[in-house]
């Protein structure tokens, strides 16, 4: 049995999904967290079933790739039961999607999620009546606490066993008189009925949905037969046919909502309104934004620096002891030192910064701050040819470039996706942030690290401007739902952070240890000298010690490798003994900007194609060289370090 979770953005599909799958899908409080589907196998009352969490979609006629992905699954004919998750506090709007899902004629259960929020708004829903009208079970739930989930799956099983389809909701008579004959016409076409319900298709064609109209040969008979239907609808209502259908569906949903729900009291004014007054304020909003990010910065540095120092000292001590143990110049010394340095890099350098960073990012995501940042930053994003929504993938880029590149799927326009994908790779990801913290903030000063972040934002903005001049797009501008703040249980935030930290521990860390050991062997056999010799023109241009060449190559695998292997390449854990402060700055700036890691390049390749990925390599590499050179000149000049 294949179950699909479908619903509008930010209604809690992934939260529900995680209840049965364990923490597998990232959840956040902003529309469009899930951009590709996640699948899990699970057992429900003895049945094995596959459950898929689909990206949120406001309706079944969309332009964004994330939403198209959801529709593709729903139309594949492989889904046995749809769980339509609806935000009960936004029931009226959610029902518009429900009406469309019913047209697919797949067995379905409606899950009214966020019942607590609905009650706070004073909305009471007569689920029995709603269920009778729609002809499908309706279950109340609060996914965040797990309430109602058992009942939900009991109903899922029932509709599956009974192959029970809901009642297709009828539009007003004059519109049905257009839909019905068109559907009959389509049903007679070969192959249509097997794939999708003719009524659904008829409605989509009347809505002039490109992805359906595009399927029909414009020269053929069918195409010319469809047009009179669209015309008829437009003549009757004096409006474009898609608007007629959407207004009609809207009216249907409102009508339904009024029938089944009562507003028992006006929405309780809560503190969240007052918070938003300040958070989105024309002046204080920006002040708060700056304070949040500055506070965040200090939080990471405070915790990370506090832990890094003693731990690093401990590892230094052990690494020193290895020499006594194995004797100078032996293969076992090189190898054991390499491995121990890899382990030390993970525990003492990366994790102390990564853990507070990921927890902080999760908190910002979960309470719903990011859409507010999009609102505040929209005007500035316009200056670089983008709009506010693009800030979300960019902020996610501070976590990891791979999901950030994927998150560009929430953007409507291909050109924007292209530009923002490239820009996200220039944002320092958690790996590069640890480098900035551990090298610059820790060894030079926190302000120097702040300067790198500020420089980065400036460069990203300039790059955005340049790219949007080369790849212009007449954009519509921002259309973004701003969800209410949420206070999800802290366990949820911690689970999410752990989900991301675990990724480092099981994937990146072994790579770090392996890479570190490999470098040790290369040093033992003096292969590193060849690589360093090959890279020496670049390294000398930047004024760095020649031995750092290899670390840049390894950094392409995982950015953390550049830093962890730096100590090894220099032959000392006391970086400042081997490099000047200027060199540390130049190295960090270069590593922050140059070519994205392999995983990111793979994601780029997939999202914006080979050309885009190659362009990114060329672009980021050029930017990195220019900035590193500028750092070399200016930092050396002003600080003499």
């Amino acid at each position, binding site marked *: 049995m294949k179950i699909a979770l479908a619903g509008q953005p930010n209604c809690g599909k992934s939260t529900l999904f995680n209840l049965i799958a364990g923490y597998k899908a990232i959840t956040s409080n902003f529309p469009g967290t899930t951009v590709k589907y996640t699948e899990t196998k699970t057992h429900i009352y003895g049945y094995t079933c596959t459950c898929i969490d689909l990206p949120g979609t406001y309706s079944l006629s969309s332009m964004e790739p994330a939403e198209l992905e959801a529709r593709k699954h729903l139309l594949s004919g492989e889904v046995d039961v749809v769980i339509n998750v609806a935000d009960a506090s936004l029931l009226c709007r959610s029902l518009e999607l429900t009406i469309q899902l019913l047209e697919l004629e797949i067995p379905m259960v409606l899950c009214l999620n966020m019942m607590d929020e609905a009650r706070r708004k004073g909305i009471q829903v007569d689920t029995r009546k709603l269920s009778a009208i729609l002809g499908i079970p309706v279950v109340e739930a609060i996914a965040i606490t797990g309430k109602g989930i058992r009942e939900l799956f009991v109903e899922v099983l029932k509709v599956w066993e009974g192959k029970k389809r809901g009642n297709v909701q009828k539009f007003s008579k004059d519109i049905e008189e257009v839909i019905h004959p068109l559907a009959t016409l389509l049903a007679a076409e070969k192959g249509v009925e097997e794939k999708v319900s003719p009524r659904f298709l008829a409605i989509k064609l009347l809505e002039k949905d490109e992805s359906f109209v595009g399927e029909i040969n414009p020269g053929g008979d069918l195409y010319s037969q469809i047009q009179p239907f669209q015309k008829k609808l437009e003549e009757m209502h004096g409006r*474009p046919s898609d608007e007629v259908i959407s207004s009609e569906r809207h009216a249907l949903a409102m009508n339904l909502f009024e029938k089944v729900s009562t507003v028992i009291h006006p929405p309780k004014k809560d503190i969240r309104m007052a918070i938003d007054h300040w958070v989105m304020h024309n002046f204080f909003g920006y002040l708060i934004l700056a304070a949040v990010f500055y506070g965040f910065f200090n939080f990471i540095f405070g915790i990370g620096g506090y832990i890094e120092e003693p731990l690093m000292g401990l590892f230094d001590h052990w690494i020193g002891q290895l020499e006594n143990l194995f004797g100078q110049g032996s293969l076992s010394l090189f190898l054991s030192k390499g491995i121990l340095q890899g382990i030390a890099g993970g525990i003492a350098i990366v994790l102390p910064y990564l853990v507070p960073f990921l927890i902080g990012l999760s908190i910002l995501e979960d309470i719903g701050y990011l859409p507010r940042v999009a*609102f505040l930053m929209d*005007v500035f994003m316009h200056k670089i040819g983008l709009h506010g929504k693009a800030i979300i993938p960019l902020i996610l880029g501070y976590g990891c470039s791979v999901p950030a590149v994927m998150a560009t799927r929430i953007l409507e326009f291909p050109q924007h996706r292209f530009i923002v994908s490239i820009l996200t790779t220039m944002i320092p990801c958690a790996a590069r942030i640890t480098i900035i913290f551990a090298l610059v903030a820790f060894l030079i000063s926190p302000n120097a690290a702040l300067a790198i972040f500020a420089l980065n934002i400036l460069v990203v903005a300039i790059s955005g401007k340049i790219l949007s001049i080369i790849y212009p797009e007449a954009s519509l501008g921002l*259309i973004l739902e701003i969800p209410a703040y949420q206070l999800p249980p802290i366990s949820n935030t911690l689970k999410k952070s752990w989900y991301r930290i675990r990724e480092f521990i099981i994937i990146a860390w072994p790579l770090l240890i392996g890479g570190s050991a490999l470098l040790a062997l290369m040093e033992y056999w003096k292969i590193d000298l060849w690589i360093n010799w090959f890279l020496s023109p670049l390294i000398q241009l930047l004024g760095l010690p020649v031995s750092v060449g290899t670390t840049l190559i390894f950094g392409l695998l995982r950015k953390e490798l550049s830093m962890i292997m730096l100590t090894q390449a220099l032959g000392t854990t006391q970086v400042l003994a081997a490099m000047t402060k200027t060199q540390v700055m130049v190295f960090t700036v270069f590593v922050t900007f140059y070519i994205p890691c392999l995983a990111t390049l793979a994601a780029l390749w997939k999202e914006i194609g080979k050309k885009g990925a190659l362009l990114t390599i060329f672009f980021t590499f050029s930017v990195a060289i220019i900035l590193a050179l500028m750092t070399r000149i200016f930092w050396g000049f002003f600080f003499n370090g």
Partner: protein
Amino acid sequence: MLIPLDRVAVNKKAKVMGVQGGWGIRNRLSQLGIHPGDVITIVRHAALGGPILIEVHGFQVALGRRIASRITVEEVE
């Protein structure tokens, strides 16, 4: 009197009369529950010609000025 939505003052209500624009913009707005006939409350205007925040059917949506200027409305009350 018909005016573009971005000209409506904060805390005022306005009724949507029409949307000027192609399929894409109509589709996007209708998905968010903004159709002719709906009543919108203006919650705030961002600084420096930034987006406006509106409330419709009990939830909030940020709309860029360019889009807002294409929604013709009539002030109510």
